[in-house]
């Protein structure tokens, strides 16, 4: 059974991110996902959006972010679109666990978590100049 896609659009600001996360959670409440799928979906949303805001944000205006959530029988498909600088997070997904001491700074854990939660990724830069990342979160996989 395929449910209708859900869409959230928000500015890539602190407040925008917080509001969007609340809206996501309200939407997920209506879909009665199992606990693992729910957690992983929220985790992917949180980590990808935080990464976009950090790396893709333009300097002269707020980032415009659109997230589409598509429940499918065996997975949740998340599509993240933004109008920021070209940024393919998959390039960072190939890293193994970050070494906080060697790097001298703490970071990289977000994409490690996304890689663990998701089964597939796709990226393209659209003709309109938007980043589009798709992430597949399989249902019920711990």
């Amino acid at each position: 059974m395929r449910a209708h896609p859900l869409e959230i659009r928000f500015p890539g600001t602190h407040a925008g991110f917080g509001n969007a996360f609340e809206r996501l959670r309200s939407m997920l409440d209506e879909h009665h996902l199992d606990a693992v799928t729910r957690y992983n979906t929220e985790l992917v949303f949180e980590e990808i959006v935080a990464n976009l805001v950090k790396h893709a944000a333009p300097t002269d205006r707020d980032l415009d972010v659109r997230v589409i959530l598509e429940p499918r029988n065996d997975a949740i498909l998340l599509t993240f679109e933004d109008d920021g600088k070209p940024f393919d997070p998959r390039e960072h997904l190939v890293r193994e666990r970050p070494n906080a001491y060697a790097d001298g700074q703490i970071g990289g854990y977000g994409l490690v978590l996304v890689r663990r939660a998701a089964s597939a990724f796709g990226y393209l830069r659209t003709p309109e100049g938007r980043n589009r990342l798709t992430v597949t979160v399989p249902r019920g996989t711990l």
Partner: protein
Amino acid sequence: MQLQLSDTGDGILSISLIGRLDTPGVDVIETQLTARLVPRGARAIIDLSQVSFMGSGGIRMFITISRALARKGGKLALFGAQPLVAQVLETTSLNALVPVRADAETAAAVVRA
């Protein structure tokens, strides 16, 4: 996200975190937690049993506080994580930097040592 403080009676501070350690939650709690622990070089255990969600922001927060505490002679250990939060701790190997234990007693033993 809220925190509750108690003293275990042997100089170890016990802190319960309640809520979600997502980006907004970390923003709410990090300054409070840092202020409670770091200036006094506390030896502290943190109960995660009522934390329903944690992402990389929470991981980063605990590493940062743990490092700051170490410079002051203090120590931090976490315990009691729910299964999905425990999965996040394991995936990021947080235990290699900040001790993660199953219960308060073993967490207290770590910070007491």
